């Protein structure tokens, strides 16, 4: 488990991260969500040791991170780039060797990833000759080529076509399934919602919410209820302490406290068949909007 503990980082007068703590569980895909300038990239750079924090620490399995631990991290920075004139395979081997992989292993591993990410025909072309999408694939390969123990990816899906997104999702899932903590940031909230086990929401340099997707949704489930009944549900509007938000034939979405909701349910059951009655779980987009307010 990767744990970020009370990390603070200032740039001059600006506080980029203010006492930030969260964790990335082993084998959990953790989505890191926040607006532009919220502190995602700074946090990721501190995790990777590219930036030093002013205070706080980062631990892996309870121990403070060492340089050797960080070599076993896979990192994809927000601002992409590889050596333009180096060939794809050669470049992957170089980056793997910088992280301590033996030359022969690095060559084999680079070829595996090149095939996996469908770059086989571009293997010996310089990066600058590749299309942007293929450069992005090469960038992902660069983050994975040393078979990392922990993955930290800043916006891994931006610039990818839908096919490539699926390929990358598959690869990330594999890493998590092996027990690696995986942290990635994304602006594509629907993707994060579909994919992630855990979520960390950051805004203005502070963590606003963190936890498993279901916990977060439960915690943010307010006083909204959905009722689907066989009869026309127009009568709900006349119930005391109830505010109807949406209404369509037998469907009604309303706001009420738990007691008032129970009264509505009993009334509906008395009037006819009740197909479903649930507290409404908010979508990630709604949670996000709510917590960063």
């Amino acid at each position, binding site marked *: 488990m990767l744990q970020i503990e009370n990390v603070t980082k200032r740039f001059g007068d600006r506080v980029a991260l203010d006492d930030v703590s969260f964790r990335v569980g082993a084998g959990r895909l953790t989505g890191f969500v926040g607006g532009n300038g919220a502190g995602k990239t700074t946090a990721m750079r501190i995790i990777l040791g590219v930036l030093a924090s002013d205070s706080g620490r980062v631990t892996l399995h309870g121990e403070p991170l060492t340089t050797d631990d960080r070599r076993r991290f896979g990192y994809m*920075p927000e601002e992409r780039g590889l*050596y333009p004139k180096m060939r794809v395979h050669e470049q992957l081997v170089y980056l793997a060797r910088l992280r301590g992989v033996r030359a022969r292993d690095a060559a084999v591993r680079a070829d595996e990833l090149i095939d996996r990410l469908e770059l086989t025909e571009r293997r010996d072309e310089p990066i600058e000759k590749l299309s942007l999408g293929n450069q992005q694939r090469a960038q992902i390969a660069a983050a994975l080529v040393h078979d990392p123990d922990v993955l930290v990816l800043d916006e891994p899906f931006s610039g990818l076509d839908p096919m490539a997104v699926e390929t990358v999702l598959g690869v990330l899932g594999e890493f998590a*399934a092996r027990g690696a903590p995986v942290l990635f940031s994304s602006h594509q909230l629907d993707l994060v919602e579909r994919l992630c086990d855990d979520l960390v929401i950051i805004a203005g340099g502070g963590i606003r919410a963190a936890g498993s997707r279901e916990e977060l949704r439960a915690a943010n489930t307010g006083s909204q209820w959905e009722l689907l009944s066989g009869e026309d549900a127009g009568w709900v509007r006349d119930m005391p302490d109830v505010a109807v938000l949406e209404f369509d034939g037998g469907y009604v979405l309303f706001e009420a406290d738990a007691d008032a909701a129970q009264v509505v349910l009993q009334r509906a059951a008395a009037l006819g068949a009740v197909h479903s009655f649930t507290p409404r779980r908010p979508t990630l987009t709604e949670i996000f909007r709510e917590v960063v307010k």
Partner: protein
Amino acid sequence: MSTTTTSTAAPRFRESITLVAGREVMQKLRSKAFVISTIILMLVVLASIVIGGLVSRNQGDTPVAAVGVVAEQLEGLPGIEVTEVPTRAEAEDLVREGEVDGAAVPLENPADGGPAMEVIGLEEAPGILIQALSIAPEVTLLDEPSVDGFLAYFVALGFGIVFFISAVTFGGTIAQSVVEEKQTRVVEILLSSISSRALLAGKVVGNSILAFGQIIAIAVLAGIGLMVIGQDILISDLGPSVVWFLGFFAIGFVLLAAMYAASASLVSRMEDVGAVLTPVTYLVMIPYFLVIFFNNNELVLGITSYVPFSAPVGMPMRIFLETAQWWEPLVSLAILVVTTVVVVALGARIYQNSLLRTGSRVKLGEALRG
């Protein structure tokens, strides 16, 4: 769960440096521009030595035509190659045709006690022939002959140009390599793998190997060229100063490389490299011009041989002129080493603090403070 087959003995500092240096060397050797310009440089060095040798060989024996008894008199004179012809007319023909530089014939009616031969030239008197026939007075030298000023100038020029070209070429390469990594952002991946010190050291080592290799190649080529044209004497004269030059260069280049790398790390775009490198380029150029223009001024040469930036050219020059005491190069080298250590430490600090700051140029003061 797939097993991890990839072995990861974390590379230590030295291995990281080796990897980075290896990449720098490979990339440079793969550059056609670099290979071609190196070949041209080598050819120019070889050509200038061979042509110089051929020109000086032409000043060998002067062909001269001579008639009858005069031919016997001329035989054995230094620097003269005699062609014996039967008549004065034939001797004149050879002079006109340019076969010989001059001719000597017996005077038909020599005056008593006067010269007994006549020298024939085409447009001017054949100087070497006349010199050979003249009686030279006895000469005594009170001092050992000093190195001829012209030769000193060329040796200064040689050291100066080699140092200057290598410093600018490979310093520029380091600067470009630093900015390329910043501009393409690959530096962030690199810094998550190895320390900025290892990265900087690798660049400096890689380019120093290239620069040093090129200089040794030039020195060897020049040595072979001099031997082929039979100027072995010059080699033994130059030998010690060339060896010192190599020693000074090896350290002096590290000093410059650190300055080039640190300066380049302040900017984020290739377009800005030129401006930020100007101060360093001046530092390389000024001592180079001083040494070339003041190679016969002992005071200036004395000072330049101790200033770290010019010592790699100034001190070997003084060793060649034999004006340096045995301990002087050692002191100068010590000063150079200390300066290099200090500058490399400062350079590494600037480099480390500037690498992730993209956008506008980082101010030197900020880079030093961090």
